C-alpha cells in the first residue's frame, strides 16, 4: 500500500539522470512506459518516473513535471493513463499531449512527499536553466545554488554566457560558484574565487553552503571558508539587531492597533471596557463573513476582501458599540469600576454568542495575495502582512488624530470629556457625543480585528488574548493621551523583541510586566502624564 523503499541516495540518482540527460538522451526507454509509472501510486515509482521523464528530452517533460509540482497531474490506476489538467482547465494526455474530454472517474492526483518535491524542483531547475522566461531562470539558478549539482556546470556555464539580465547573471555566477565549491576536481584558486563570490552573497543560505563544506577541503580553502563564515556571521549578527528592531516595530504596531480603540473608550471616556477585546473579535469575524461571501459568490474579488471588510468591521463593531453605550454604559458614567463589571459580563455574553453562531473552532481567514509572502531587505526578511499592518496602524492612528483635531465631532468629543456640563450648556448633545465616541472606539477595535485576523486565529477567544496587553499599553503610555499610547505600544514591542532572544519568550514577557510595574512606580500616571493641578481636580 505504501512505498517503503525510497532509500536510494538522492544525489546518485540525480547524477545518473543528468549524465544520461546530456550524454545519451536516446538511451531512455519508451516515454509512455515511464509516464505510466506515475499511475502506480508508489513514491518510488513516481521518483523513477520523474527521473526518466526529465531525462527523456521529450517536449512533454516540462509540462508533466511542472504540473506534477502543482498537483495538476492525475493518473488512472486501472488504465495506467496519466493526464495533465492545464492551468486553463483543459485536460490533455500526459504522454502524447493530445486533448482529452474529461478525466476518468477513478483518476486521482499523483501524490508527492517532501523528498519527491525536492527531486521535482531539482529536475525543473535543470530543465529551466535555459528557459526564455527570466523568472524561471532565476528560480532555476537559485535551485541550482542549493543543490550545487556538479553535472549541471556546463549548462550553467552556457546559461551564464547567454544571460543578459544583470540580477540573473549574478544568480548564475553564484550557482556556478556553489558547484565549483563542491566539485572535487576544481582547482584551489577556482575554489577560493568561488568562496569570495559566496561570501559576497552573505545571507543564511551562503552560510549554510559554506558550513556544509566540511573539513575535508584543502587547508587553504578551508581557511578561506572559515574566515568567510566568520565574516558572514558577524554581518548577520549586525543585521539581527535591525531584525529585532523591525520585529519590535511590528509587534508594537499590533499592540497599538489593539490598544488604540481602548485609548478612546478607556483613555478619553474613562470607561473600563473589558469587552474591548470582543469588539476586536467581532471585527475579525466580520472579515471572515466577508471572505466567505466573496469565496462563494465573487471569487475574483478575494484580493479586495480586506478593503471591503475594513469599513464593514468599523460599522458592525461601531454599531454594537453604540448599542452597548446606549443600553448599558450610559447608566454607569462616573462609576468606572462598575463599567468594568458590566462590560466583563458583556464580554462573556459576546464570546458565547459568537461561539454559538460560528462554532467554537477557528475560522479560516485567508491572506490576500498582496499580504502573502515576504521580501528581503538586506539580510532581513520582511513579511508583507506585518508591513501592511504597520502601515495600516499608522494610518488609522493618523486619521484618528486628525479626526479628533479637525472635525466637529472631534471638537465636541474633546469638549465633552473636558467639561461635560459646560459642553452641554453650549448646546452640544452630550449623550449623542458619548454614544458616538464609544462607537468610534469600538469601531476602531473592529478595524483592528480585520488586521489581526491576518496574523492570529479567528476564534471566540481572540479578544481575550489582547485585552490585558491593551490595558498595559494604554496605562503605560498614560491614560488620555493618544501619543502616549503610540509611544507606549512601540516601546513595549521593541523592548519585548530585544528581550526575547536573550531571555526567551516567557521570561521576556515576565520581564516586560515587571518593568511596567516598576515604571508605574516611577511615573504613577504613565509615560505621558498630564502635570499640574488639573490632574487631581
Amino acid at each position, binding site marked *: 500500500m505504501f512505498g517503503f523503499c525510497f532509500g536510494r541516495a538522492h544525489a546518485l540518482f540525480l547524477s545518473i539522470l543528468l549524465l544520461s540527460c546530456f550524454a545519451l538522451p536516446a538511451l531512455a526507454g519508451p516515454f509512455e512506459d515511464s509516464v505510466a509509472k506515475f499511475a502506480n501510486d508508489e513514491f518510488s515509482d513516481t521518483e523513477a518516473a520523474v527521473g526518466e521523464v526529465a531525462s527523456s528530452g521529450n517536449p512533454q517533460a516540462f509540462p508533466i513535471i511542472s504540473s506534477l509540482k502543482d498537483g495538476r497531474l492525475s493518473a488512472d490506476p486501472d488504465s495506467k493513463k496519466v493526464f495533465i489538467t492545464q492551468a486553463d482547465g483543459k485536460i490533455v494526455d500526459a504522454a502524447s499531449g493530445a486533448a482529452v474530454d474529461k478525466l476518468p472517474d477513478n483518476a486521482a492526483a499523483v501524490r508527492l512527499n517532501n523528498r519527491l518535491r525536492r527531486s521535482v524542483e531539482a529536475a525543473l531547475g535543470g530543465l529551466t536553466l535555459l528557459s526564455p522566461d527570466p523568472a524561471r531562470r532565476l528560480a532555476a539558478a537559485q535551485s541550482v545554488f542549493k543543490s550545487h549539482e556538479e553535472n549541471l556546470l556546463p549548462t550553467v556555464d552556457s546559461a551564464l554566457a547567454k544571460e543578459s539580465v544583470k540580477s540573473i547573471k549574478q544568480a548564475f555566477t553564484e550557482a556556478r560558484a556553489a558547484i565549483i565549491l563542491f566539485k572535487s576536481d576544481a582547482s584551489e584558486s577556482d575554489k577560493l574565487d568561488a568562496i569570495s563570490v559566496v561570501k559576497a552573497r552573505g545571507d543564511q543560505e551562503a552560510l549554510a553552503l559554506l558550513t556544509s563544506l566540511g573539513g575535508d577541503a584543502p587547508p587553504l580553502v578551508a581557511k578561506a571558508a572559515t574566515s568567510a563564515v566568520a565574516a558572514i556571521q558577524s554581518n548577520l549578527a549586525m543585521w539581527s539587531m535591525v531584525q529585532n528592531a523591525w520585529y519590535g516595530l511590528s509587534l508594537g504596531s499590533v499592540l497599538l492597533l489593539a490598544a488604540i480603540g481602548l485609548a478612546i473608550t478607556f483613555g478619553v471616556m474613562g470607561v473600563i471596557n473589558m469587552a474591548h477585546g470582543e469588539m476586536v473579535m467581532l471585527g475579525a469575524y466580520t472579515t471572515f463573513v466577508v471572505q466567505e461571501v466573496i469565496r462563494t459568490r465573487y471569487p475574483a474579488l478575494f484580493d479586495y476582501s480586506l478593503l471591503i471588510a475594513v469599513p464593514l468591521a468599523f460599522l458592525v463593531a461601531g454599531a454594537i458599540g453604540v448599542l452597548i453605550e446606549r443600553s448599558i454604559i450610559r447608566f454607569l458614567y462616573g462609576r*468606572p469600576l462598575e463599567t468594568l463589571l458590566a462590560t466583563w*459580563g*458583556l*464580554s*462573556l*455574553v459576546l464570546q458565547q454568542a459568537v461561539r454559538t453562531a460560528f462554532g467554537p473552532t477557528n475560522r479560516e481567514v485567508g491572506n490576500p495575495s498582496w499580504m502573502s509572502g515576504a521580501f528581503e531587505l538586506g539580510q532581513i526578511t520582511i513579511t508583507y502582512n506585518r508591513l501592511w499592518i504597520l502601515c495600516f496602524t499608522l494610518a488609522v492612528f493618523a486619521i484618528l488624530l486628525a479626526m479628533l483635531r479637525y472635525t466637529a465631532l472631534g471638537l465636541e468629543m474633546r469638549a465633552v470629556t473636558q467639561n461635560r456640563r459646560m459642553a452641554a450648556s453650549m448646546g452640544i448633545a452630550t449623550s449623542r457625543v458619548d454614544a458616538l465616541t464609544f462607537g468610534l472606539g469600538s469601531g476602531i477595535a473592529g478595524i483592528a480585528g480585520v488586521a489581526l485576523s491576518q496574523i492570529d486565529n479567528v476564534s471566540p477567544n481572540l479578544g481575550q488574548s489582547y485585552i490585558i496587553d491593551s490595558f498595559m499599553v494604554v496605562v503605560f503610555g498614560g491614560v488620555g493621551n493618544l501619543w502616549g499610547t503610540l509611544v507606549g505600544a512601540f516601546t513595549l514591542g521593541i523592548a519585548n523583541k530585544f528581550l526575547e532572544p536573550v531571555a526567551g519568550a516567557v521570561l521576556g514577557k515576565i520581564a516586560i510586566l515587571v518593568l511596567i510595574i516598576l515604571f508605574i512606580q516611577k511615573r504613577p500616571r504613565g509615560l505621558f502624564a498630564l502635570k499640574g493641578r488639573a490632574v487631581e481636580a
Partner: protein
Amino acid sequence: MTPHILTRSLDRAATSFILIVAGVGVLIPLSNLLMPQGSIFQVPTYLVALWGKYLCYAILALSIDLIWGYCGILSLGHGAFFALGGYAMGMYLMRQIGSRGVYGNPVLPDFMVFLNWDKLPWYWYGFDKFAFAALMVLLVPGLLAFCFGWLAFRSRVTGVYLSIITQAMTYALLLGFFRNDFGFGGNNGLTDFKDILGFNVQADGTRCALFFLSCLALMIAFLICRAVVTSKLGKVLIAVRDAESRTRFLGYRVESYKLFVFTLSACMAGVAGALYVPQVGIINPSEFAPGNSIEAVIWVAVGGRGTLVGAALGAVVVNYAKTFFTSGPLAPYWLFMLGALFILVTLLLPKGIVGTFNAWWEPWRTGRSTGLAADEESAAREDGIGAANAAE
C-alpha cells in the same frame, strides 16, 4: 485582642452572620457523618466539598471587600495571593505524599522525577512540616503584598493604574508558574494529594473537618474585618477611599494605612487559598489568571461592596449559580446567564444584593427610629459604590 474591639464589631447583623456560619459549620459535617447514607437529611460528601470551596471563595471575597469596599483599592490581582497561599499548602501536601508517588521517590514530587531533577530545590525545604507551611501560607502572600504595596502606595499609584499593575503582577506570576523550570509543576500544578496531618484528604471525616475549618476561618476573617472597619482605622480607610489627599492633609500617612490593610487582606486571601487546595485537590497556575481575580471582584460587587456580609454572600451566590448553570441542558448557555447576571446587577442593583436590601429597608427603619446612628455600615451604604471613584 482587646475586648472593646470585639464588642464594638459585633452588632446584630454581624452576630447573625457569625451564628449562621457557625451553624452551617457544625450541622453540615454532623449531617454528613452521622445520618445514614441516602437519607434526605444526609448532606452528601460531594456537597460538603462543593460548599467548602464556596466558603474559601467567601473568604477571598471578604479580603477583597476589605480593601476595595472600605479603602477604595481595586486589586485585579487578588487571585495571586489566593493562589500563593494555595501553593504553600499544596507544597506541604506534595511533600506528605512521600514515597507513595508513582515513581516512589521518597523526597521528590513526581513531576520533579519526571523532569529528571536530582534534588529538591531550596524553596521546597521545610514544607514537609505543617507548621512551616502554615506560616508560609500567611507569609508569602503577605510579603508579596507588603513589597508590592510598599512600592505602589509610596509612589502614590492609585485608581486604575493600581488596578492594572496588580493585574500585571498576577499575569506575570501566571506566566512564571506555567514555566516548568520554576519548580512548581508547570501547567499541571500540584495534585494527587494523599493526606494532611496524617488524615486521608479524601476521607469523609477529613472533608468535614476541612469544611468546619473553612467555616471557622470565614468567621475569624469576618471578625477581623469587622474589627478593622469598626475601629477608628476603619473610618480612616473610608476617608482615604472618599478623599485621599484630604486625609493626607489631615496628617495621616495614607500609604501606611493602605499597606496595612492590603497586606492583611493578602494574608486572608492566602488562608482562603490554603483551605481551598485540599478541598478541590489541585492547585495550578490558572488560579493566577487575571480573569479569576476580576471574577472575584465581581462576587463582591454582586453581593454588595462595602458590606462584609454582602461580599461573602456574593461569592456564594455567584459560584452557586455557576455550579447550577454548568450542568444539565443549560450548560451550553451558562455564560449568557452569568454575563447577564453581571450586567443586570450593575444596572439594577448598583449597591449589590445586600446594599440594595439595606437601602430598601431604610425608609422602614427611619420610620421606626429617628436616631440616626453613626454606623459605618450605613456610611458604606450611603455612598454605594461610586464615591471611591472620586479619587480617580
